[in-house]
């Protein structure tokens, strides 16, 4: 994909931590630049390999190990701490950042180059992979306003993680898998999935604070804030004490009919946008 030999040489054999002040400083900064570019490259590769139909587990493991190695080194240097704190909210323990499933952020201080968000996991963020757009993972963020589409996508990701959280039963949506990601056994997914929507949701939530949240985002937020999960409460169902008709999975079609006097005017736009979302999701998955 890139022509060979045009990259600057990566002095991988000799990590010169020399004593000479000037030369040493220059070497050190070029080393950290090289290390950073290697980290970026590795993250891109990991994201891309989620898109491959036939992902190579060996390759993914090797790349992930390289990323971990860089992470560890950067932590020892202290530059990692700087990187994550600058971006993510406080209160996240440093240990979380070393976990492979963590979302890696790049410091804003490092000029205006595009930042990369990625989700590294073989399985932990399966839910995201399952329902999220492939291109989402390799989304690049910049501070410019032109990145409205990013925010929209972030919103989708959040929405999808919500979807996956709420409509867990309808996850016979094996169909919604992109066919990407490594092979794994089915029984192991359930354990991992509960953790990931929160992690990603948390991080993307943090991110939203940084960016101005555009309109579509908030609309989706409202949409889901209206979903009343009491519908699923056993008590509620048993006692039949439902204050307002809730939108069950099969009610969507019913409420589509325009002549149908909708129980609440709120629900109709909700279910239409449900359908729109589904359409939207399918479009993304098909990649048209």
């Amino acid at each position, binding site marked *: *994909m*890139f022509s*060979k*030999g*045009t*990259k600057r*040489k*990566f002095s*991988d*054999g*000799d*990590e010169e931590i020399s004593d000479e002040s000037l030369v040493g400083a220059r070497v050190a900064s070029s080393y950290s630049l*090289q*290390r950073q570019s*290697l980290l970026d*490259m590795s993250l891109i*590769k990991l994201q891309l390999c989620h898109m*491959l*139909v*036939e992902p*190579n*587990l*060996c*390759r993914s*493991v*090797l790349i*992930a*190990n*390289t990323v*971990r*190695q*860089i992470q560890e080194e950067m932590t020892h240097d202290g530059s990692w701490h700087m990187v994550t704190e600058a971006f993510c909210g406080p209160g996240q323990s440093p240990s979380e950042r070393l*976990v*492979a*499933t963590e979302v890696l952020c790049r410091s804003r201080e490092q000029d205006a180059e595009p930042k990369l968000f990625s989700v590294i*996991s*073989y*399985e*932990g963020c399966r839910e995201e992979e399952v329902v999220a757009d492939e291109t989402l993972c390799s989304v690049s963020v910049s501070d410019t306003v032109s990145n409205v589409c990013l925010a929209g996508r972030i919103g989708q990701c959040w929405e999808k993680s919500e979807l996956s959280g709420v409509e867990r039963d309808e996850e016979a949506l*094996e*169909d*919604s*898998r*992109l*066919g990407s990601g*490594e*092979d*794994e*056994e*089915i029984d*192991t997914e359930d354990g*991992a999935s509960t953790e990931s929507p929160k992690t990603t949701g948390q991080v993307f939530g943090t991110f939203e604070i940084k960016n101005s949240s555009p309109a579509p985002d908030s609309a989706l937020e409202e949409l889901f804030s209206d979903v009343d999960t009491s519908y699923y409460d056993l008590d509620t169902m048993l006692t039949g004490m439902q204050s307002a008709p809730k939108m069950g999975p099969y009610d969507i079609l019913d409420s589509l009919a325009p002549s149908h006097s909708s129980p609440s005017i709120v629900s109709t736009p909700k279910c239409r946008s449900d359908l729109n979302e589904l359409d939207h999701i*399918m479009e993304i*998955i*098909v*990649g*048209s």
Partner: protein
Amino acid sequence: MIVFVSAGIHVTCMFEYQHLESFQQRRDTKTPVAYCNPSTHILTLIMRLRLFAGLAEVQPRPWFRPRMLSPVLCSDLAALEPEYTEADVISTVEFNQTGEFLATGDKGGRVVIFQREPQGEYNVYSTFQSHEPEFDYLKSLEIEEKINKIRWLPPHNPAHFLLTTNDKTVKLWKVSERDKRAEGYNLRDEEGRLKDLSTITTLQVPVLRPMDLLVEASPRRVFANAHAYHINSISVNSDCETYLSADDLRINLWHLNITDRSFNIVDLKPENMEDLSEVITVAEFHPHHCHLLAFSSSTGTTRLCDMRARALCDQHAKLFEEAVDPSRRSFFSEIVSSVSDVKFSHSGRYLLTRDYLTVKVWDLNMENKPLETYQVHDYLRTKLCSLYESDCIFDKFECAWNGTDSVIMTGAYNNYFRMFDRASLRDVTLEASREVCKRRAVLQPRRVCVGKKRKETDVSVDSLDFRKKILHTAWHPKENIIAIAASNNLYIFQDRMAPNGHHNTPEIQSAPPK
């Protein structure tokens, strides 16, 4: 290249290799099917055709993305396409135990078997489709039909048996010849039609008459559904009854006659997949000891396991790992140390491992460092970053021993392959490509130079073609005949100094260098 030394009594020679023949695979690409952008149109078409072929009964799923068009479906884009389809790329090469047969598998799931003629040439003996592309419904993943490995079973009757595997399924094939046909049946005539019973007046005993040789391949066993990850190797045990199949995380032991059960003997899967840091790359049984097996990992270690110790061999009996000097460690150290092939020597005393830049000979009795290390293409050490970028650093090269365990061979880039003579410590780089392979032409050694060229024929590192890689090589078990696979081409080279094809004992010679 011939080298000699002094007037001593023994001398070793590097054999001179000449091109024997080459075969090229190309599928018929003329079947027209509309090909356009990857959209729902093409997806639907393909699914329909598969339905027709009986391969899958599934509703067209708009979100199923084919990674590669089946070779039959390539359209008249043949003019714009490269010369061969991806499906023709050879993915494995293997001689049988006598060397009479050579089997190759390709990415399209086809196996081609060559047989050695009495004159010494190899000709196509049989071709069959071993694996078809499958679809895993649970994961919405297509399972590639590429043949990852072929292993011959030791001969025990006139038919030939071989194991072939793709990512998920191992199959046992029987290849048998038929050159006689029974004639003179009582109830049916020559065309097979039932005879009118009233015309039968006498009984006859059918006799066997010769017919044209017919080679039939039939699947005798299918070993399926035992691997959740991609199978990377199979190896037949010396007991000739069992074999192992290894995927990225597990190794299973099978009995050749039992297809519905296998034993798991190695399991590297961690409790939490997020902790995964090591995968199995290759596994092989010891050639003589049926209880010993070796497997290598992506972290650069090779383990020897003894199946007598316990049922699950996660604890190794021996661990072969060379300590990496911490001061020379780089971010690529682990990737470069990942072992891509493991081969026991014919004697069973040594182990040959191939990692990205070197090939190492280990003594089974010494675990802490290899006996010998040979640099395959050390000039790539400074280019690791760009090789990482282009993914070339993940290429898995195979290695091979010769029949007497005195020479080892492995492939490299630019269609080069290397041979190392263990005794004399000399090596040679040869090229396998169509331009240089004319009939009986002797292969000229090549040299890759890092700085400026010393000779006209030198090739500079920067002009190496990294798309032309020789990953699969095989050496005849007894003679100096080698088979090299370069994309869709198979080259067979033979030692020139043995025109009758028989193995020579080393001779004393002196010759001026060319």
